[in-house]
C-alpha cells in the first residue's frame, strides 16, 4: 500500500517536471492526460481499499485515508482528468488566438500537475497543520496558473487571490494551534499529543470547551476563505474568471471541496466536544449568508465565467447548509452535492471556454445563437445548465431535494422557505442567461467560422455530464453505502 500511494503521488510530479524539462508541446499535453488517467484509476483503487480494509494508515499514521478522504481524492482526480483532457484543446487555441508564448505554455503544464498533486495530497494528511500548509501550496501553484496568460487583469486576480487566501489560511493556522492548546492545558490531562485529526477526534471529549468554540469559528473563517464563504469570497469570482477554463474548473470543482474537507474534520471534533448544535448553527448561518451573496451575484453577472464562479459560491453554501442541517438526509445530500458540483462545474467552464475562443468575449450579451454556431458545445452546455440548477434527472436535483427534506424534518421551516426561494431565483436567472447564450439571435456582423472545435473540446464535457445524469436515475449500491459510511464518520 505504501508503494502504491507513493507511486500515486509521484505520477503527477513526474508529469509536471518532465513536461517542463523536455519542452515538447505534444509530449506535455499527452503526459498530463496520461498521468491524470492513471491517477483516476488509482483513486478508484484507493476507494476500494478504504471501503474493504476500513482505514488506510501508513508511515506511522502520517498518512491516513478513510472513506471521506478517498471520496475527496476521487472527486479531485475526476476533475484533474477532464481538465487535462480539455486543456489540450484549450491551450492549442490559446496559442493560435491569444499569442500565448512557449514559456507560458510550459509553465502552465508545470503548475497544472503540481496543483493537482497538492490537491491530491491534502485529503491524505493526518496532521492538520501540514494540511493547512498544503492548502497554502495549492494557493501558490494555482496563483501561477491564474496568470498563465500574463495580463493586467490576471495579475490583479492572482494578487487578490494570494493575499486574501494567505491571510485566511493564517487565521486557520491560529485556529489549529488553539485546538492543540485546548488539549494541552491543566484540566485536559495533556491528551492532545499531536495535531493529528485522528488523535484530536479520539480525545475530543477532553478538550477545553471555550477554546474549542473560539478555534472552530477561526477555522470556519480561515478555511471558509478558501471555500468561498461570503464575505470572504471576493477573490473567487476574479480568479475563476481570469484563469484559463481548465484551471477555472479545477479551482471551482475540486479545490473548494478540498478546503471543505478540512472544515468538516474540525466540525466533527468540535461537535464531539461541544455537542453538534454549535458547529451546525455556525454552518447554517455561513451557508445562508453565502447563499444570499451567491444568488445576488448570479443575478447581477454580465460575463459567463463570473456567472459560474458565483454559482460555485451558491453550491458551496448549499453544501455547508446541508452539513449544518445534519442528520442522515442533510449530510448525505451535502456529500452528493459535492459529487454533483465536481461533475457539472467542469461542463459549464469548458463550455464558456469554447465560447470564449469562438466569440472572443466573455460578455453574455455578445454571445448569442451558439446553437447555430457550435451545436455540440451548445447542446452540452444547455444540458449542463439544466443539471446545474437542479432540474431532474440530475444528481444535484436529488441532493438539493434531500437537503430541503432535512430542513423540513428538523422543523426549520424558515430555512426551507429561504432555500427554495433562493434556488428559484438562481434557477430563473441562470436559465435566462444560458438561454440567451444558446438560443438568442446571433449578431448579423458576426462572421466567425461555424462549427465546433476538435473532439478534445467537447468530449470532456460529455463524460461528466453523462455521469451526472445517469447517477440522477440510479445511485449504485456501492456509492450509497460509501456515502452512508461517510455520514457516520462526520456525525
Amino acid at each position, binding site marked *: 500500500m505504501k508503494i502504491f500511494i507513493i507511486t500515486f503521488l509521484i505520477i503527477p510530479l513526474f508529469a509536471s517536471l518532465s513536461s517542463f524539462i523536455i519542452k515538447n508541446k505534444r509530449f506535455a499535453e499527452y503526459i498530463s492526460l496520461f498521468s491524470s488517467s492513471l491517477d483516476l484509476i488509482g483513486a478508484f483503487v484507493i476507494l476500494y481499499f478504504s471501503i474493504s480494509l476500513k482505514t488506510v494508515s501508513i508511515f506511522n499514521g502520517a498518512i491516513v485515508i478513510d472513506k471521506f478522504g478517498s471520496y475527496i481524492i476521487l472527486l479531485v482526480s475526476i476533475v484533474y482528468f477532464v481538465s487535462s483532457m480539455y486543456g489540450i484543446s484549450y491551450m492549442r487555441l490559446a496559442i493560435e488566438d491569444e499569442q500565448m508564448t512557449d514559456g507560458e505554455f510550459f509553465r502552465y503544464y508545470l503548475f497544472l500537475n503540481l496543483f493537482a498533486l497538492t490537491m491530491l495530497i491534502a485529503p491524505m494528511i493526518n*496532521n492538520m497543520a501540514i494540511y493547512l500548509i498544503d492548502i497554502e501550496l495549492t494557493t*501558490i501553484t494555482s496563483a501561477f496558473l491564474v496568470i498563465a496568460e500574463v495580463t493586467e487583469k490576471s495579475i*490583479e486576480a492572482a*494578487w487578490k487571490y494570494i493575499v486574501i487566501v494567505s491571510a485566511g489560511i493564517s487565521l486557520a493556522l491560529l485556529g489549529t494551534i488553539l485546538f492543540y492548546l485546548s488539549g494541552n492545558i491543566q484540566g485536559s490531562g495533556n491528551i492532545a499529543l499531536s495535531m493529528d485529526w485522528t488523535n484530536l477526534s479520539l480525545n475530543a471529549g477532553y478538550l477545553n470547551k471555550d477554546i474549542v468554540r473560539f478555534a472552530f469559528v477561526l477555522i470556519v473563517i480561515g478555511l471558509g476563505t478558501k471555500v468561498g464563504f461570503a464575505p470572504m469570497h471576493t477573490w473567487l469570482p476574479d480568479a475563476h474568471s481570469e484563469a484559463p477554463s481548465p484551471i477555472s474548473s479545477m479551482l471551482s470543482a475540486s479545490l473548494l471541496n478540498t478546503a471543505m474537507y478540512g472544515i468538516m474534520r474540525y466540525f466533527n471534533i468540535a461537535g464531539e466536544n461541544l455537542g453538534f448544535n454549535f458547529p451546525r448553527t455556525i454552518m447554517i448561518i455561513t451557508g445562508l449568508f453565502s447563499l444570499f451573496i451567491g444568488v445576488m451575484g448570479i443575478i447581477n453577472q454580465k460575463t459567463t465565467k463570473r456567472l459560474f464562479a458565483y454559482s460555485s459560491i451558491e453550491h458551496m453554501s448549499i453544501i455547508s447548509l446541508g452539513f449544518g442541517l445534519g442528520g442522515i438526509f442533510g449530510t448525505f445530500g451535502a456529500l452528493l452535492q459535492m459529487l454533483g458540483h465536481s461533475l457539472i462545474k467542469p461542463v459549464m467552464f469548458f463550455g464558456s471556454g469554447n465560447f470564449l475562443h469562438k466569440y472572443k468575449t466573455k460578455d453574455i450579451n455578445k454571445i448569442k445563437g451558439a446553437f447555430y454556431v457550435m451545436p455540440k458545445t451548445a447542446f452540452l452546455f444547455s444540458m449542463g445548465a439544466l443539471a446545474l440548477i437542479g432540474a431532474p434527472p440530475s444528481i444535484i436535483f436529488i441532493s438539493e431535494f434531500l437537503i430541503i427534506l432535512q430542513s423540513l424534518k428538523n422543523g426549520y421551516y424558515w430555512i426551507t422557505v429561504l432555500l427554495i426561494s433562493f434556488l428559484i431565483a438562481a434557477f430563473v436567472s441562470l436559465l435566462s442567461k444560458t438561454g440567451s447564450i444558446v438560443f438568442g439571435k446571433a449578431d448579423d456582423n458576426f462572421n466567425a467560422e461555424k462549427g465546433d472545435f476538435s473532439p478534445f473540446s467537447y468530449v470532456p464535457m460529455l463524460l461528466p455530464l453523462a455521469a451526472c445524469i445517469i447517477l440522477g436515475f440510479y445511485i449504485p449500491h456501492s456509492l450509497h453505502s460509501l456515502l452512508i459510511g461517510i455520514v457516520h464518520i462526520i456525525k
Partner: protein
Amino acid sequence: MLGYVMPLYVYVIEDLLVALILLSSFVMLSSRWISFYIHAYGFQSFLIFILTLVLGIESQNIDLYFVAFLTLFVRTIVVPYILLKMIKKFSIKEEVKLIIKIPLSIISGLLLTVFAYFLIYRLISPFSPKIVINASSIALSLIFIGFFMIISRFTTITHILGLLVIENGIFLLSVVVVPTLPIIVELVVLFDILVTVAAMLILSMFMKMRTGSFSTTMLNRLVG
C-alpha cells in the same frame, strides 16, 4: 510559557521583549517609507529569536533552539534581505500610500491591542499565569495589526509585510502558549513563509513590468 515554572529573570526578559515587539509593530504603523517597514520587521523577528532562545535555554528544549536559529536565519536574514534587494533593484523611493492617516492608524493599533488583551484574558485566564496572558495578548495584537496593515496600505511590499507580521504573531503565540508544539509544524510554517514571499515577489515583479508601479491602487478592474 504555559506549564513551566521559570526563574524571575526570565519573566522580566520576556516582558521586556514582548513590549519591544509590540513597539516595533507600532513603528511599522507610524512610518511612511518602505525600507523602514522592512527594518522594523527584521528587528521584530530578531526579538522573537532572542525570546525563543531564552525560553529554549530555560526549559532545556532542544526543539526550541532549532526553531530559534531557523527563525534567525529565515525571518531576520533571508526575508528582509530579499525584500531590501528587491527595493534596490527597482530603486523604489516612493512613499507608501495610506488610506488611513498615521495618527488614526496608531489609535486603531492601540484599540486592536486592547481588544486582543481582552480576548486572550477571556480565553486563557483561568489556567495561566499573568506573564503568559501579557505575551500572548501581544502576539494576538500582532495578528490584528498585520491585518490592519494589509487593509490600510496600498503597496505590494506592505501587503507582504502585513502577512509576515501575521505569521510572526502566530509564531509568537505558539512559542509562548504551546511550547510543546511539534517541531515539524514550525519547520513547515517557515517553509511556507519562504514560498509565499517568493511567489508574491514574482507576482509583484510582473505587476511592475505591466503597470510600472508597485502600488495596488490601480487594481480595480475586476469588480462585481
